[in-house]
């Protein structure tokens, strides 16, 4: 091996070590905050409930009996009879049942998980940037970008692990019960991680610039609230004046479409074609720009 190759290898190894240090720091903090344990416990409860407390009888693709904790109920729906044109009560199809449960689990994980996750990580980023800690970290032989990446990667990997644990567990439980294996449901995992990442960009970058993680959290929640308004564009645009509509449009394109992304997931789950991937892509773009600004500031700021 040539000398230069060797030293390049060595420095790559060294960089890996430095990154692992920064990752480990984040993992340890998340663990110490008991956040991960809490989510794991709730997830475990969710899929234990689905696997053991719920009994399903499936007859010809419909659910003929559903027992939860031994209490029986038959989930039904109103269906228009094709022959008579009348509405009749009918046992729900397994497909719909699966979609219903999956959507519920996804929705809960997406909204509750993200809101709570952002709230819980607020002290994490605050601690990371605290005087007396960040200065020591920066004095270590790794670039500031790598240091920040270690932190970010630590957070995102944790979210990925937690989302996978919950969704995969629920998916396996439901699939075994119903005999229906819809792998498309697993797409919820990357969707949750990506959108968490988009919202985390705000909390990270605003904290870096303003040194206030409280302000950052308020802004992030504000953006989620705005995205709920932006999700109703079909209804709202009809009633807005032209100038208000323009502002609304700008907001729609600039800000993350956190709430509208839920649509993508429910379309995916029900097997419909996804009408538009735009909310997801524009959110990713938003997140990338905000991360870019955050990294830029982190690199040039005095600590």
């Amino acid at each position, binding site marked *: 091996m040539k000398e230069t190759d060797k030293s390049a290898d060595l420095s790559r190894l060294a960089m890996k070590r430095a990154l692992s*240090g920064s990752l480990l*720091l984040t993992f*340890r*903090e998340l663990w110490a905050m008991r956040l991960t344990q809490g989510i794991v416990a709730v997830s475990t409860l969710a899929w234990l409930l689905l696997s053991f407390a719920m009994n399903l009888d499936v007859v010809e693709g419909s659910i003929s009996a559903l027992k939860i904790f031994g209490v029986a109920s038959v989930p039904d729906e109103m269906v228009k009879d094709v022959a008579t044109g009348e509405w009749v009560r009918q046992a729900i199809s397994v497909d719909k049942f699966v979609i219903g449960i999956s959507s519920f689990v996804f929705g809960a994980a997406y909204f509750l998980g993200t809101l709570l996750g952002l709230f819980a990580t607020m002290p994490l980023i605050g601690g990371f940037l605290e005087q007396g*800690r960040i200065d*020591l970290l*920066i004095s*270590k032989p790794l670039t500031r970008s790598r240091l920040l990446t270690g932190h970010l990667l630590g957070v995102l990997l944790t979210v990925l692990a937690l989302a996978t644990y919950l969704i995969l567990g629920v998916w396996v439980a439901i699939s075994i019960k119903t005999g229906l294996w819809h792998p498309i449901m697993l797409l919820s995992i990357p969707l949750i991680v990506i959108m968490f990442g988009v919202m985390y960009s705000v909390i990270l970058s605003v904290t870096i610039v303003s040194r206030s993680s409280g302000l950052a959290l308020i802004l992030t929640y504000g953006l989620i609230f705005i995205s709920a308004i932006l999700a109703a564009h079909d209804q709202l645009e009809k009633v807005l004046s032209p100038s208000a509509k323009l502002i609304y449009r700008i907001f729609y394109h600039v800000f993350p479409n956190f709430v509208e992304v839920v649509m993508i997931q429910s379309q995916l789950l029900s097997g419909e074609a996804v009408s538009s991937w735009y909310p997801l892509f524009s959110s990713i773009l938003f997140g990338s720009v905000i991360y870019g600004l955050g990294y830029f500031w982190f690199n040039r700021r005095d600590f």
Partner: protein
Amino acid sequence: MSTPAITTQGLTKTYASAFGRKKIEALRGIDIEVAQGEIVGILGPNGAGKTTLLKILLGIVSPTSGSATLMGRPIGEVEARRKLGYLPENHRFPPYLTARQTLDIYGRLSHLSADYRAKHIPLLVEQAGLASWIDVRVGKFSKGMMQRLGLAQALLNDPDILVLDEPTDGVDPVGRREIRDRLRNLKARGKTILINSHLLTEIELICDRVAIMNFGQIVRSGSVSEISTEGTGWRIQCRNLPNALDLSSYNAKREDLNTVPVPVPVPVPEKEIDTGQVSQDEVNLDPNVEKVIILDSGLTETLNALIDYLRANGINILSVERHRRSLEAGFLDIIDQQKAKS
């Protein structure tokens, strides 16, 4: 000649406040050079810019202008920080980590191998006097213990340059002595140490050189003995000082020279007395014993006049040297002079 460990050329730093209204000139042109193996102390009142200077060297704060090098490499280069140890002022470690976990993580950040970490961490913790605390969460540590752990962290990668911002802050006297001994030990191994402290007695004990900062500038630098003898008078050691040396006649004789301060002989044990006439009983000294007279004027003219006088009175002069005061007294003098100037 080997590369200097630390150099800075014309470093300035102006902090702009959030809205750019108020600007703080924390550093205004700092030039220093620290040779390898030196222990240099940086002294100065609060807000003088000491921490800012150290932070610039470590790449934590970027200079407004000027440049600096560590072991010949420009600051800001990642490689320049590889063999560096740093103990920040008021450092914090994540409270939920144990001492061992803390050092392990910081060791990784310094690129240390798993073997190295496993071997050296318990050793350093023991040297820091925290052996029985190694698996205790840092949140339970007292201030002095945190400081000891901080120092262990700074030494973990066996650094060539050690930058310490108030390392003995909160450490008990025994711990402070241990730290001093370790720093001397490191110096003996050729390490360079830049240390920033308000405890001048400590600085005096370990530093080769000191630089005194005030308002973002280095107002004086030199060896500890240079600083502590600067502007002081003389110390005259003599024998056969008569019991009743008539200094009043000497005082009277000097009165024609108004510009020259009156020398004040002080009986052993040494003590400094304000300039003024000396009464007879104060110089009521034992003959045939070695005595020290401290002249608080630094003027050679006065010294020579006194020597003439002593010699004329048959007194044996054994030695004449600059009177040494404590570093603290020297420091306070220099800062007072600065205040008077501005």
